[in-house]
C-alpha cells in the first residue's frame, strides 16, 4: 500500500477542479499554503470542460446594457423555479469578476472592435426579465471551454500545483462522519494508493454515458457522484437530466447553441421554423428543455426529416465569414463526421444527453450537505457538474455550466483552504483500501460470461428509450426492472485483461458499476416525481405542480434500493410563475 498525506485532495482536473486547486494552494503573504494534490483519471487537459463551445455567461454589458439580476432571473426561470435563489444570486453576481479573472489569467477571449471581451446571445438569456435576447455569453470562438481548461492548467503549472495524473479515485475515506481522504488506483501500474487528507473536493463531472446518444466523453461515468453515494451521502435532483437539442444525428456530438445564437434556425421536414409555434418570443433560443421537447414532438407527429427521428439546424442563410470566424470547430465537426459544409447544407440533429442538473448536494461554498436540515459533512466538498448547489434547478441555461465551475470551483477552493488550514487530520479508518481490494478481487475472479461492453450498451439503449426527454410511469417502472437485471448480470462479468498495467477493462468495469447506480437513482427520482418541470417531463403528468413538487429530491442508498427524501427550495427574489418564452 502506498500512502500519501496532504491537507487537501481535489478529485478531477476539469474547470472546477483546477479552479479549486488554484485557490486552495495559493500561498498567502508569508508564502504559506496548504499541501494540495489534484488526482485525475485523465491528463488534466483531456477533461471534458475542454469540449464546452459557446461561452460563459456574465453580465459584463460590453455590447448592450446588462445586469446580473437579469442573469439571475433567467437562471431561475430557466431552471423552472427549482433553482436555489440564494446560490443563483451568488453565481450571477460573481460571474462578472470571475470572467475578468480568467481574462487576467490570459484566457484569449474573442474581442469587440474596442478590445473588450466579445459577447453573444444564448438560449434563455434575456434583458429586462424576459423582454428579448441579450448578448451575455463571453466567448473564445466556439472553443471557450478549451481555452478555460488550457488557461487554468497553465496557471496550475505556474503555481506549481501537485498533480497525480491517471489516478482513478474509487473510494471516499471517512471516520466517524469526518472526511479523511480517498483511495485510488494508479492506472499505469494497477497499484492502490491511500491519500490521507483533511479535506476532499470532488469535481469529477457528469454521467451522460448512461445514455446512448450523448455529447459526453466516454469517461463521463459519474464516478464522484457514485463514490459518495455509496458512502451514504445523498444525491440531489438526479431525475433532471438535460438533453441538448442539437447533437449530430446518431452520434450525439454537440453543435453549440451559439450556432443558434449567431442566427441558426431549426427546421422540420416541410422547412418550417417550428420553434415559432412553441416559443413565440425567443423562438430557436428558448431554453434547451423546451427546444428538445419541441423536436421530439415534431418527430412524433411525423414532421421529422423523411419521417425519421431528426430535424435540421439551418445555418445556410448566415454569412460564410461569420460561420468560419465564430463557429470554426463545429464547421470542422460537421465536415469530418457528416461530410457536410454547413455554409451550404443544413445539419441533421437530434437531442443529445448533455448535462446532469443533479448531483452531490452542496451549499454555496461547495460544502457537501447530507440531509434536508442542511447538515454539513466536515471536510467534504463538491463543485461543477458532479455537484448540485442548486443553481440549475430543473434545467440549466447554456453557458451556466462554465459559470458554475468557475464560481463554485473558486468558492470551494477557498472554503477548503480555510478548513484545511485549521482542521486536524483525522486518523484513517482500519484497512482504508479494504473495500476497493474486495471490488477488484471480485472482478478479477469473475467467472461468468458477461462483458462490460454488453451490459453498458444495453443500459444506454434502454435509458435512451425509457428515461430521456419524455417519461411515463410505465416506462420508468420497466426501466427499474431492467436496471435490476443488469446489476445482477454485472456480478457475472468476466474480464479478459488479467494484467495490472493500464488495465482499462478494469477501469471500464468500475465505471459501469457507477453508471448502473446513477441510472437507478435517476429513474427512481423520475418515477416518484409526478409532475413535469424543466427537463423532467412526464407524459402522464404534463403540468408543473408547485403545490406538491416545488422541492428538491434527495436520494439515499439503502442496500440495493433507493430511498427518497425531499427538501425545500430557497426562494428569495422571484416567485414561481408560469414559464413562457
Amino acid at each position, binding site marked *: 500500500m502506498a500512502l500519501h498525506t496532504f491537507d487537501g485532495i481535489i478529485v478531477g482536473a476539469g474547470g472546477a477542479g483546477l479552479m479549486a486547486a488554484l485557490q486552495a494552494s495559493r500561498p498567502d503573504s508569508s508564502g504559506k499554503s496548504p499541501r494540495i494534490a489534484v488526482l485525475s483519471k485523465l491528463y488534466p487537459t483531456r477533461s471534458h470542460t475542454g469540449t464546452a463551445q459557446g461561452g460563459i455567461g456574465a453580465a459584463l454589458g460590453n455590447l448592450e446594457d446588462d445586469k446580473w439580476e437579469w442573469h439571475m432571473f433567467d437562471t431561475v426561470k430557466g431552471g423552472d423555479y427549482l433553482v436555489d435563489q440564494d446560490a443563483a444570486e451568488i453565481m450571477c453576481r460573481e460571474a462578472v469578476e470571475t470572467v475578468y479573472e480568467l481574462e487576467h489569467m490570459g484566457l*484569449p477571449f474573442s474581442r*469587440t472592435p474596442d478590445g*473588450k471581451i466579445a459577447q453573444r446571445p444564448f438560449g434563455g438569456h434575456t434583458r429586462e426579465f424576459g423582454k428579448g435576447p441579450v448578448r451575455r455569453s463571453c466567448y473564445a470562438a466556439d472553443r471557450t471551454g478549451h481555452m478555460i481548461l488550457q488557461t487554468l492548467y497553465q496557471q496550475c503549472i505556474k503555481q506549481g500545483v501537485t498533480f497525480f495524473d491517471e489516478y482513478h479515485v474509487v473510494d471516499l475515506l471517512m471516520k466517524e462522519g469526518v472526511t479523511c481522504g480517498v483511495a485510488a488506483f494508479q492506472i499505469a501500474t494497477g497499484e492502490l494508493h491511500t491519500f490521507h487528507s483533511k479535506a476532499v473536493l470532488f469535481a469529477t463531472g457528469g454521467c451522460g454515458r448512461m445514455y446512448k446518444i450523448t455529447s459526453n466523453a466516454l469517461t463521463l461515468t459519474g464516478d464522484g457522484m457514485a463514490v459518495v453515494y455509496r458512502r451514504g451521502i445523498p444525491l440531489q435532483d438526479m431525475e433532471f437530466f438535460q438533453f441538448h437539442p442539437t447533437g449530430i444525428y446518431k452520434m450525439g456530438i454537440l453543435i453549440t447553441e451559439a450556432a443558434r445564437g449567431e442566427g441558426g434556425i431549426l427546421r422540420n421536414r416541410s422547412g418550417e421554423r417550428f420553434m415559432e409555434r412553441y416559443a413565440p418570443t425567443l423562438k430557436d433560443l428558448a431554453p434547451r428543455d423546451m427546444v428538445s421537447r419541441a423536436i421530439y414532438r415534431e418527430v412524433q407527429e411525423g414532421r421529422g426529416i423523411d419521417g425519421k427521428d431528426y430535424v435540421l439546424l439551418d445555418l445556410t442563410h448566415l454569412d460564410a465569414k461569420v460561420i468560419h470566424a465564430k463557429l470554426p470547430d463545429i464547421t470542422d465537426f460537421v465536415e469530418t463526421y457528416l461530410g457536410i459544409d454547413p455554409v451550404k447544407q443544413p445539419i441533421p440533429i437530434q437531442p443529445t444527453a448533455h448535462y446532469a442538473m443533479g448531483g452531490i448536494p452542496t451549499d454555496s461554498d461547495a460544502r457537501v450537505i447530507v440531509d434536508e436540515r442542511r447538515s454539513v459533512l466536515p471536510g467534504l466538498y463538491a463543485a461543477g457538474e458532479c455537484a448540485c448547489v442548486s443553481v440549475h434547478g430543473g434545467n440549466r441555461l447554456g453557458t451556466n455550466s462554465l459559470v458554475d465551475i468557475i464560481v463554485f470551483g473558486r468558492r470551494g477552493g477557498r472554503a477548503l483552504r480555510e478548513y484545511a488550514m485549521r482542521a486536524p487530520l483525522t486518523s484513517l479508518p482500519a484497512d482504508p483500501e479494504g473495500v476497493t481490494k474486495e471490488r477488484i478481487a471480485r472482478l478479477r475472479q469473475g467467472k461468468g460470461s458477461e462483458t462490460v461492453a454488453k451490459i453498458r450498451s444495453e443500459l444506454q439503449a434502454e435509458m435512451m428509450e425509457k428515461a430521456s426527454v419524455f417519461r411515463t410511469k410505465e416506462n420508468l417502472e420497466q426501466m427499474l426492472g431492467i436496471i435490476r437485471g443488469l446489476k445482477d448480470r454485472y456480478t457475472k462479468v468476466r474480464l479478459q485483461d488479467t494484467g495490472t498495467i493500464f488495465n482499462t477493462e478494469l477501469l471500464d468495469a468500475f465505471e459501469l458499476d457507477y453508471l448502473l447506480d446513477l441510472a437507478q437513482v435517476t429513474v427512481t427520482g423520475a418515477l416518484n416525481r409526478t409532475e413535469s418541470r424543466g427537463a423532467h417531463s412526464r407524459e402522464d403528468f404534463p403540468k408543473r405542480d408547485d403545490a406538491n413538487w416545488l422541492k428538491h429530491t434527495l436520494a439515499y442508498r439503502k442496500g440495493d434500493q433507493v430511498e427518497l427524501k425531499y427538501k425545500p427550495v430557497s426562494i428569495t427574489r422571484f416567485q414561481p410563475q408560469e414559464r413562457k418564452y
Partner: protein
Amino acid sequence: MREVAFKILRFDPEKDSKPHWESYRVELEPTDRVLDGLEAIKGSVDGSLSLRRSCAHGVCGSDAMLINGRNRLACKVLVKNVKQPIAIEPMRGFKVIKDLIVDMEGFFSKYRQVSPYLIEAGPAPEKERLQSPEERERFDDTTKCILCGACTTSCPSFWADPDYIGPAAIVQAHRFIFDSRDAGKEKRLKIMNEKEGVWRCRTVFNCVEACPRGINVTRAIAEVKQALVRGKV
C-alpha cells in the same frame, strides 16, 4: 453494418518481449470512427486492448495514434475513408507502455519548459485588459493546440534527436510570444534559441500534415524563427 478489418500493433509488457501485429474483424457502420472500431474490438473481441480516449470528437487529444502510417486522432477518422485492413500503431518516438498507450511524460515536461502561461506586464486592471481583434487574431491559430502529441511524434528531427523540444512546445511558446498581453517574450525566445530549440526544425511539414486541429505548425515555427532573427515580435 459491414465487416471492417483492422490490424493492431499489440504489446503487453507483462507478457510480450516485443510488439506484434494482431488482426481483427468487427461489424461497423461506414460512418463509424476508427475509435468506434477499436472500442468494438475491446468490447466484443479482446477486452485487454488498451488505448487512451475520452471526448471522441477530436477535442481532448487523448487518442492520437498511427492510422495507416499517419498520425491521426482515432476519433476524427471515419472507417469509410481509410484503406483496410486499417493498420493501428502507437505514436513513434515515445516509449510504448502498453498497446497504443505511450509515455507522455517527456512531452509534457517540454511543454512546461516554455513557461506556458501568461506573464503579466503589470497589475491587472479592474475589468479586462484590452486587446484589439487584430491583436487577438495574431495568435489565434496556436490557441487551438490540444497537446495530443501528433505533431511532435511525426517530426523526423524529433525522431533523430529526442531532446529536441519539438513542434508542440514551440506552438505553445508561439501562443504567448505573439499575445499582446504577454511580457515574457524575451524569456521564451531565449528558450527557443537554445540548441534543442526552434533551429532543430528542418521545415519538413510533417507536423502540419499531422495536426488534427489544422494548426499551421510550420508557419508558427517560422514566425518564432523570424522573431529571433529580427530580435522582435
